[in-house]
């Protein structure tokens, strides 16, 4: 007489779930590799408009990001509701754009400096005023390659 009963014959054996962790880990690694962690923590609203005449940015060339938009709901008390510029992790004024570009250039190898592209991530509901000022600053500091970063879609239903 043993403690353990013998298995009955004919019953369905339970499905082995031993490989489930492996499958999930595989998915996990896929997502870890395929996604890019956000470069900057956004303080402003940033939903991009749509366009269809777009070109992909070459990831091998240096890209600097400038964000423009209204402060997020959490920050309205601190920063108000006007359109603001975000460089790296802080809201900055227009005058600091030149310093930002200079700092970005200083971090690059010399031969890459002329290939620096400025990606302008501007909220779809932002007004043109701030962007115009930023463009003037970029011209002054001779950062002429720009890209209005957009989603892919039909521009007519923006």
């Amino acid at each position, binding site marked *: 007489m043993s403690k353990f009963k013998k298995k009955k014959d004919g019953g369905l054996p339970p499905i082995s*779930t031993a490989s*489930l*962790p492996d499958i*999930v*880990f595989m*998915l*996990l690694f896929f*997502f*870890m590799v*395929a*996604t*890019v*962690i*956000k470069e900057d923590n956004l303080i402003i609203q940033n939903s*991009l*408009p*749509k*366009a*269809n*005449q*777009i*070109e*992909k*940015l*070459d*990831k*091998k060339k240096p*890209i600097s990001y400038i964000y*423009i938009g209204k402060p997020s709901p959490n920050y309205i008390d601190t920063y108000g509701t006007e359109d603001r510029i975000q460089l790296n992790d802080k809201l900055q004024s227009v005058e600091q754009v030149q310093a930002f570009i200079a700092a970005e250039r200083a971090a690059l190898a010399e031969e890459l400096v002329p290939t620096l*592209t400025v*990606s302008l991530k*501007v*909220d*779809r*509901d*932002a*007004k*043109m*005023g701030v*962007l*115009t000022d930023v*463009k*003037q600053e*970029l*011209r*002054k500091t*001779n*950062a*002429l*390659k*720009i*890209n*209005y*970063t*957009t*989603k*892919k879609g039909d*521009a*007519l239903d*923006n």
Partner: protein
Amino acid sequence: MAKRSAPEVNAGSMADIAFLLLIFFLVTTDIATDSGLSRKLPPWEPPTDVPVIIKEKNIFALTLNSKNEILLTSGGDSELVPLNELRAQAVKFLDNGGGEGKDVCKRCKGEGDKASSDNLDKAVISLANDRLTDYKTYIAVQNEILAAYNDIRNREFKKDYPNLEMDFVQATEMYQDPSTEPKVRENLKEKLEAIKAIVPQKFSEAEAKRD
């Protein structure tokens, strides 16, 4: 005493842990959007330059106001155009080919209206915006203008290089794709540059109006 074998570690919760991590990564990461409308800003110059004189009929002037309306001034007339007609209007203007003598446009397929642009090289599109124009309208207009240029470039590319079986936009994509062989890229670059020279993007942006 009988030797007991080490008990097997229960791996049942491993899946839960992995799922938790997976969900964490799904939530915290976003797939980066790194594509958009590439433009080049004009260099900063002291405003002492002698203004370049361009014939009025060669200018397709767009003005965006604070209410996001588009005013088109071309060939002496001004009218409001809806966004969805802008591309067709721009193509019609660029492709007009109303030039005579040394300004004659051999490639143009347009109406040849004397009051509109001379040829592809002379036609200039200018865009001015108000400080209170919405960015989404501005992008939509930029997109439509680039689309108009791309339409004509596609046509010319197909006409000049019919055996490639692609258009200008596809060729540009292929050229920018890093997996394309260097030989093919060199070859494509030459052709793309040739088309760009035939259909130049003469698209100027005036500084925004102060109000």
